[in-house]
């Protein structure tokens, strides 16, 4: 794990560094020595991040400025042609709209449902343990497997969902959940929410558990009703957990590939693709098979998620939690 323990000892002599003492103004040299020792501790992580995150990111950017043959051979520089080609692609407006719809339509209901579910699962009742375990299952199952399962559940001919809805007279005739343009996005979003709620619920449940019981007692003594208590005690104290859940959800849902890709598998074209599946199809599936364009789309994806997260953090004024 640590390759050179002696070196670390030599580089960082003296007692362990303490925050307070450093703030009070330790000699520069010692701080720099600590920095050098820290580098040893960080080196495995830095190697991994440098080699498998930063380097491929640079490769991606490099590829986005190159011109490629259909077999992936580099023909020469492309300037910004790949970017303009992606932006001018006839599918781009629909893909961007889909991405926005996908992220918002999954994240918002997920957070609301998870808030309620976490609250419920924090109550004491017989069988709570088992219900909590049941909620874990969609989180544990891989997204591809769950998505493939839903392609069958949603199937026009063989799907149990149509059978159920017909029996309950909710629909008069079978619905083509994954083929009919009116329902495709709704169906995909439903699966998205189904697989995202468990993780979110657990983050919020952890947040609820961290709220000390005394706070509720104080509220009760002050005569607060349950809604007042929830609104003015629980929600504000849950803010850090909510923030974490929302940011991670935005990132995961934006980057989510298997759900959209698998459920949309049978539909031709890009009309139900998000920017992630669009990029993948450009790189590996579509007839044009354009590495340069796919790389440009990949760079734009990273930029998009960065912007989305920054906007979100601005909106909720995250610094409030760090004061």
């Amino acid at each position, binding site marked *: 794990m640590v390759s050179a323990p002696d070196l670390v000892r030599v580089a960082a002599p003296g007692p362990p560094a303490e925050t307070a003492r450093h703030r009070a103004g330790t000699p520069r040299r010692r701080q720099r020595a600590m920095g050098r020792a820290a580098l040893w501790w960080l080196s495995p992580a830095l190697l991994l991040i440098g080699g498998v995150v930063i380097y491929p990111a640079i490769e991606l950017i490099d590829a986005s400025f190159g011109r490629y043959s259909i077999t992936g051979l580099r023909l020469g520089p492309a300037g910004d042609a790949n970017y303009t080609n992606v932006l001018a692609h006839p599918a781009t407006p629909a893909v961007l709209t889909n991405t926005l719809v996908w992220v918002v339509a999954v994240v918002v209901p997920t957070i609301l449902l998870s808030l309620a579910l976490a609250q419920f699962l924090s109550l004491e009742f017989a069988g709570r343990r088992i219900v909590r375990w049941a909620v874990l*299952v969609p989180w544990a199952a891989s997204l591809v497997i769950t998505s493939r399962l839903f392609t069958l559940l949603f199937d026009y001919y063989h799907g149990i969902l149509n059978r159920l809805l017909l029996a309950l007279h909710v629909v008069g005739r079978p619905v083509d959940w994954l083929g009919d343009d009116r329902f495709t996005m709704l169906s995909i979003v439903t699966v998205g929410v189904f697989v995202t709620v468990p993780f979110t619920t657990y983050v919020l449940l952890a947040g609820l558990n961290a709220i000390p019981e005394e706070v509720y007692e104080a509220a009760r003594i002050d005569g607060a009703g349950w809604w007042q208590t929830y609104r003015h005690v629980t929600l504000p104290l849950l803010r850090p957990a909510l923030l974490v859940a929302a940011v991670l959800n935005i990132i995961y849902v934006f980057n989510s590939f298997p759900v959209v890709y698998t459920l949309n598998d049978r539909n031709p074209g890009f009309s139900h693709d998000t920017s992630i599946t669009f990029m993948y199809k450009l790189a590996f599936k579509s007839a044009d098979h354009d590495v340069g364009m796919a790389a440009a789309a990949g760079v734009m994806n990273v930029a998009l998620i960065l912007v989305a997260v920054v906007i979100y953090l601005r909106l909720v004024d995250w610094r409030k939690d760090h004061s």
Partner: protein
Amino acid sequence: MTAVAPTHPPGLWRRLRPRVLSLTGILIGTVFLAPYAVMLLDALRPAADVLQSPPTLLPRHWQLSTFGDVLADLRFRSWLTTSVIVAVTSTAIVIAAAVPAAYVTARHRFPGRTAFLLLVLVTQLFSPTSLVVGLYREFFQLNLVNTYLAIILTNAAFNLAFAVWILHGFFASVPKEVEEAAELDGCSRPRTVLRVMLPLIRPGIVTAVIFSFIAAWNEYVVALTLMQDDSKKPLNVGINAYVTGYEQHWDQMFAASLLAIVPVVVLFVMIEKHLVGGLTAGSVK
């Protein structure tokens, strides 16, 4: 918790409450399990029965042999082997890299500390999916396309952030005196971390191990792109072969899927308690 207990007439509500709560619980549990129950029922009938129209919830013919068939299938066995190799090795790398990094950033101030933590956060934004073109090109240059190593390294790198984040919270919560006492006893710093700190943050380690194991076990895009050799695919990608344009063995696909899901559910259930505490260590500073 009392926060949302509705204020109904006390007598009646008090008597009904346990039953109403348990019933609601059963209903919620059913919603989350129902799709997988259908999956199990489909794995227990012949493939032709799965594709009957109209479909039936219960099998028309029960067929219990599918699970045995799948377990005996050599393709399934090689996919399972790949999944185990990739998940175990990448998890070991994650822990080996995350423990020293989380320790030093949680316990010491040094120039570049914030920059490192920021870097770790940023890797959360770069998903392997959006980098997949870059990853493919890198591993192509290194002649690593179609190797376990490529997939292991990718999983390790992208699961690192979460492990560092979780362990950082746990390391920060260890009282300062513990570390000082060990130092006074003449323990070198790496020894202190290994012998004194690690046992104290065991729940954190368990959580980080299981999280990165599960993430690697369920990873899809990178394996789909980098593993072209059929026998070297992980379960997740391999079982696509059961349902293609040529054969439609939904029964086998679902039996294999359940066999892939069950170990992960068991792992999750094992850490369910840590999960509730372990996730807070990172989110509440």
